[in-house]
């Protein structure tokens, strides 16, 4: 279904109603699903431990402040798999990559003309002339949204 939706979306044009509906429905559905999951989780928590087993893997409760920790030793494989800890090297490497990516995007964004300073999205626009690129990009975006909602 995900690929069918992506294939249909790839046949829409930006700035048109079909494109707005295709992406808009996905966004609205994701927000509604996330809201419904949160309500379900809260109700399960209110019912107590006996009634909360159907909510999936345990996670910090609402308002919790556990975003993960820092494993100063360099990480062990168990914590890596569970995603409970980030190693110092992970933070440094990915933090640097993300910072450079943001800096490069901002550098290109605030320089004109666009054909001399292509941003990430203008590169996508150029690549999206290929139908396959549009299908893969939209499918990946939908998959990412589903993953976020399921967290």
């Amino acid at each position: 279904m995900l690929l069918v939706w992506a294939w249909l979306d790839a046949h829409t044009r930006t700035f048109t109603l079909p494109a707005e509906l295709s992406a808009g429905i996905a966004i609205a559905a994701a927000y509604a699903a996330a809201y419904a999951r949160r309500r379900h989780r809260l109700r399960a928590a209110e019912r107590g431990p006996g009634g909360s087993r159907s909510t999936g893997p345990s996670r910090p409760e609402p308002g919790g402040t556990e975003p993960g920790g820092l494993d100063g030793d360099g990480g062990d494989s168990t914590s890596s798999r569970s995603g409970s800890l980030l190693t110092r090297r992970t933070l440094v490497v990915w933090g640097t990559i993300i910072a450079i990516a943001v800096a490069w995007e901002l550098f290109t964004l605030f320089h004109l003309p666009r054909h001399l300073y292509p941003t990430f999205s203008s590169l996508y626009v150029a690549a999206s002339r290929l139908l396959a690129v549009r299908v893969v990009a939209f499918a990946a975006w939908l998959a990412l949204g589903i993953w976020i909602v399921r967290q």
Partner: protein
Amino acid sequence: MSWRWITLAGWSVLAAVIVAAEMVAHTVGRRLQGFEVIMVVLARSRATRVALLLGWGWLGWHLFVR
């Protein structure tokens, strides 16, 4: 060399570094975790989960509609 090629080279290097970091994380990297681990950790906090969802929505609208 025009600014267009410099900019494109920058994006290419960035993409190559991201791919290399992922490859290291999934092959020999015991201390370097993949980007998905960062996403999992971010998604554990309610505030960042909401931010991820809002950012996802904006990205889709920006790329596929506008």
